[in-house]
């Protein structure tokens, strides 16, 4: 790999880090968050992201108590430009179930699902602090061979 391409790779990693710096280091379970006085997570940029207790209680009402420990928050809405503008992916079975319940969609046991802009807006309106956006940069990470071919 030439030095330029190495730099290019480093820059891409840096871009990824910059674009998604608001994502928390670790997600916490609903159970843990409900037991905290001030439920929060620490983001990658060092800031604290607090959750609305109202939203946590709403999520708790959607799930049986046995599953509270399995739901990790915030739910990450992965925006994928390669799927089309405004399209987003939700990963995780439990997360998909929650999203389906909130949006009034039928849940069919899927492990990940695609939602579109109006649904994303609706989801964010209802779960403003318990969801977080993330940018999928698949299109950004091209292999070196592709890059070299383009040049």
């Amino acid at each position, binding site marked *: 790999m030439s030095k330029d391409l190495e730099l*290019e790779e480093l820059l891409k990693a840096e*871009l990824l880090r910059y674009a998604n*710096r*608001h994502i928390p280091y670790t997600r916490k379970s609903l159970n843990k968050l409900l037991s905290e006085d001030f439920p*929060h997570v620490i983001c990658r940029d060092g800031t604290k992201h607090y959750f609305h207790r109202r939203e946590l209680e709403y999520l708790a009402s959607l799930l049986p108590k046995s599953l509270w420990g399995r739901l990790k928050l915030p739910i990450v809405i992965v925006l994928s*430009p390669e799927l089309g503008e405004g399209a987003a992916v939700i990963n995780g079975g439990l997360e998909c179930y929650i999203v389906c319940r909130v949006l009034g969609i039928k849940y069919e046991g899927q492990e990940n699902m695609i939602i579109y802009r109006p649904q994303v807006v609706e989801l964010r309106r209802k779960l*403003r602090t318990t969801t*977080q956006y993330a*940018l999928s940069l698949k299109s950004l990470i091209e292999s070196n061979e592709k890059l070299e071919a383009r040049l």
Partner: protein
Amino acid sequence: MSSSTKILRVRYTKIELIRLKRRLVVARKIHKILRERLTILISELYSMLKEATECRRRIHKTLTEIYTSLIKAYTVMSDNEIDILTQGIPPYHKLYIATKNIMGVITPLLEVRREKTRATYTLAETCTPLQDIARRMSDLIEDIATLAELEKSIQLLSYEVIRTKRRVNALEHILIPRIEATIRFLTMMFEEREREEKARLKHVKTVLTRRRAGE
């Protein structure tokens, strides 16, 4: 030549052309990310604006109802009685201020929590409109906190939208066109140089052929 299509000051070498092409790829990617970020921020902003408008309308409606009830209460009770009753009310709510992170923008989060305190008055001491006011006030405080949170968030998000938009525009209208123009210029220059070289070789060949024929 307009300022946006100016070419960059680079050395006229092939290595520089390769570097510029790579720079263009990176610039386009950054542009794509920033545009996506801008789209998210704008959609968040619009959603918040809509919510803030609804919240403000709700507050106005509640306030109108509260004032109507207050006028009714004044018809039943005296000023003094109402003052004495309201002064003894302990604080029912606590306001917690925290932060939330929306796409890297730190916005406030205001949460009103109801405290479990007992009323200092009995139902016999008050009248129905006054009880109605007390009930509505509780909802009103929550709405006011929500509105404050939304309006500050809107302000912060709009600053971020302006900043991101400026960056996107700088990339879209200045940097990327300049890199493209420089690449075009360098490519044309190298092609021209190649053509010149070919013409020179042809000329040399002709001269050499002519010389050999003369000998």
